[in-house]
């Protein structure tokens, strides 16, 4: 199977976003993203998707839980 530069970019993109690529792979991905609208749009989308998932999935601690945790303090095994 032959794969084009966009397939290669798709393969590198998650690690590009995670900043875990080698220098050579990083440069390769960056060069392609500079030239390719199709992949650049997908790069921006993936970056905003990650932020969006992180923020929408975050739920604050329910009120009252902190008090319950405070009450667990000062455990004395022999008391």
């Amino acid at each position, binding site marked *: 199977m032959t794969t084009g530069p966009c397939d290669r970019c*798709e*393969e590198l*993109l*998650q690690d590009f976003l*995670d900043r*875990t690529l080698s220098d050579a792979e990083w440069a390769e991905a960056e060069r392609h993203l500079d030239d390719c609208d*199709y992949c*650049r*749009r*997908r790069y*921006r*989308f*993936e970056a*905003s*998707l*990650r*932020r*969006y*998932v*992180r923020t*929408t*999935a*975050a*739920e*604050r*601690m*329910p009120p009252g*839980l*902190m008090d*319950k*945790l*405070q009450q*667990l*303090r*000062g*455990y004395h*095994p022999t008391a």
Partner: protein
Amino acid sequence: MREPEPTEARRIAAEERDRARFEEEALALADQVYRVARRLVGTREEAEDLVQETYARAFRSWRSYTPGTNMRAWLLRILTNLNVDRGRRSQRAPQTQSLEETDYYLANKLASHVGEEALEEEAVVERLSQDAVVNALSELPPQFRDVVVLVDIGEFTYADAAQILDIPIGTVMSRLHRGRRALKAKLAEEALP
């Protein structure tokens, strides 16, 4: 009963200070610990129980924490172990193999709905509702969900996630990649029928 020796009294007082400092540091992380817990289990009640059990155990075994190391990771390790022990990880996940598409799958599907250009807009992700995100996460198989939640929601490093889950870093990476692909396939299925 004999009064403790002055040096013994000082030792006890110092230990109480260390313990109080530990407890305060741990409690300051409770919101972040809850945020991860909430996405690892099915309901808010389960998340609350899990966080309470975690802190009960942490406060009991505070001496095994090494000061200066990552306390949030230390707490999450207790939490994920308790979660596995109690068999409470929500298991409504069906076979995921068929749900794994390529990395661009969701972007492509979204582009076919809103147009290629709109894909670049920051707000395009809002087409995916909060419910869709939450459901998609909860439907991931537990092994994948643990890693995706720790790294993408808890913002732990690969190395921290590996330590928390007691798996090799390579396993973290492969589960993360597959988990993210499965998450995007679920999101496409939920939000873009």
